[in-house]
């Protein structure tokens, strides 16, 4: 299943990679440098704004990549091209298909994420404003895979329940975008009055952002909590879309 996806990806990678790549870069430039210039010398908790924002964008990049893959792309495969119907007549059955798709969306997120990470490091060097300051950042590609799988599970869950492609508007407007704006990507949420930080703690991107930020600039032990949260959340949800998809594909 994974192999099928990567075969197709190889054909189109340039057109796919480009926008997904450029967009976070634009955000980084506009907000990091633009907005950053307005933020006082102390930056955010001692961190220059650009350095604060970059890992946030990294995490959200992974979220978007995995979310698009597990929503629109999966829906098309499911209902429009009906690829999965053909596949489940082979020994690859519904569980395998979903698992393969999780892994693929995760891989895609990790691929884009790693490319973006490389960019960030490079920019940091070029502009003498280091954005990644820790060797722990080498673990980021692995974490990005995990983050990608996490969002893929979420997206697949939504996909498995809907019948029409236009319903994704709800998913992106009510889930993805709020997460993007309120998970600590652009400004820390920890200092907000209760219950904001508490609510944020229960959302996936918050932890993804924390992991990325910590690994980029030197983690504290607290990062283990975030990693654990991601793993537990993903594990708990993962089987649900499998069951639903299985029922959808098999009468």
């Amino acid at each position, binding site marked *: 299943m994974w*192999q099928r996806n990567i*075969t*197709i990806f190889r054909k189109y990678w340039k057109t796919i990679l480009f926008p997904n790549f450029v967009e976070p870069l634009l955000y980084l430039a506009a907000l990091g440098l633009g907005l950053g210039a307005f933020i006082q010398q102390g930056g955010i908790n001692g961190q220059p704004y650009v350095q604060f924002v970059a890992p946030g964008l990294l995490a959200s990049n992974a979220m978007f990549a995995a979310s698009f893959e597990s929503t629109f792309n999966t829906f098309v495969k499911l209902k429009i*091209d009906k*690829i999965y119907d053909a596949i489940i*007549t*082979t*020994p690859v*059955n519904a569980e395998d298909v979903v698992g393969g798709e999780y892994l693929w969306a995760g891989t895609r997120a990790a691929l884009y994420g790693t490319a973006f990470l490389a960019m960030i490091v490079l920019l940091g060097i070029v502009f003498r404003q280091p954005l990644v300051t820790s060797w722990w950042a080498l673990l980021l590609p692995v974490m990005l895979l995990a983050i990608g799988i996490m969002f893929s599970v979420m997206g697949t869950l939504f996909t498995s329940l809907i019948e029409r492609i236009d319903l994704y508007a709800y998913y992106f407007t009510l889930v993805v975008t709020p997460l993007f704006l309120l998970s600590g990507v652009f400004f820390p949420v920890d200092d907000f009055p209760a219950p904001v930080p508490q609510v944020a703690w229960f959302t996936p991107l918050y932890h993804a952002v924390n992991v990325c930020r910590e690994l980029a600039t030197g983690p504290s032990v607290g990062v283990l909590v975030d990693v654990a949260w991601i793993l537990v959340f993903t594990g708990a949800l993962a089987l649900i879309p499998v069951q639903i998809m299985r029922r959808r594909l*098999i009468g």
Partner: protein
Amino acid sequence: MTEESTLEARGLKKSYSGFEAVKGVDFKVFGGECFGFLGPNGAGKTTTMKMIYGAVIPTDGELAVAGLDVYHHEREIKRRIGVVPQENNLDDELKVEENLLIYGRYYDLPSKLVLRRAEELLDFMQLSEKAEATVEQLSGGMKRRLLIARALLNDPEIVVLDEPTTGLDPQARHLVWDRLRELTDEGKTLILTTHYMEEAARLCDRLVIMEGGLIIAEGTPGALVDEHVSPQVLEFRTDHRSLEELVPILEAASDAVERTGEESILAYTDDADALLERVRGSGTEIENTLYRQAGLEDVFLRLTGRRLVE
């Protein structure tokens, strides 16, 4: 000594929230034969096929494919069968040959083997020229042939074909029939559904007639005809009034009569010449007379009062 059956169903049922698609069917398929399910649309043939290849789980009953029961051994079964589905679910994003290569991977076959088989199968189905074409560029007939090639990648002992030639022009249809016959010659077991009488008569060693979720007849094509209808059929077409006059004459002189429209009627007999003379002798005006051998279509008509293809 009774032959081991390759596929056996007993009391097989499928219901979808209130609608009973398959109401309890029994059948046995033996190795190396071509077994057919003949019936109109909505008879339950596709649902039965889907239960065989695992796309639908039966509501009740037993079903064993290659000796393995479908409730517990679906993966093993899928390894040994090939499926040509009714709808066209080729992978549009892949080219023709790639479709086969990727599909072969789903069976966990080594890549070299898949490559070799893909080439052989494209050749077998006369698609070698189109190996690098996109799926969109293929005609309907070619897509069907590709689906058949795909179904054979894992060299299955049993091939399930759901309406394999529906929508194909006669030339494409004959090509497919030839290839399918070659497969049975090789010893593969073929299970197919169709609503075309000619296809069933030509290809199938044995068949069942299905209607409304039940099997209403079973046997070889020849035996079914012998059992249920007289061998010869005369079709008379004329104006409504003359037809009314004709009915009692036909009913007296033939084995069975079926009204097929306002202005047409079928009479079954084993002596068409005699019947024809009686009709002519009666002096009723006939516009058109058609003579043919009785076929499965007539068997179906006899058993259900309806035509196979409405």
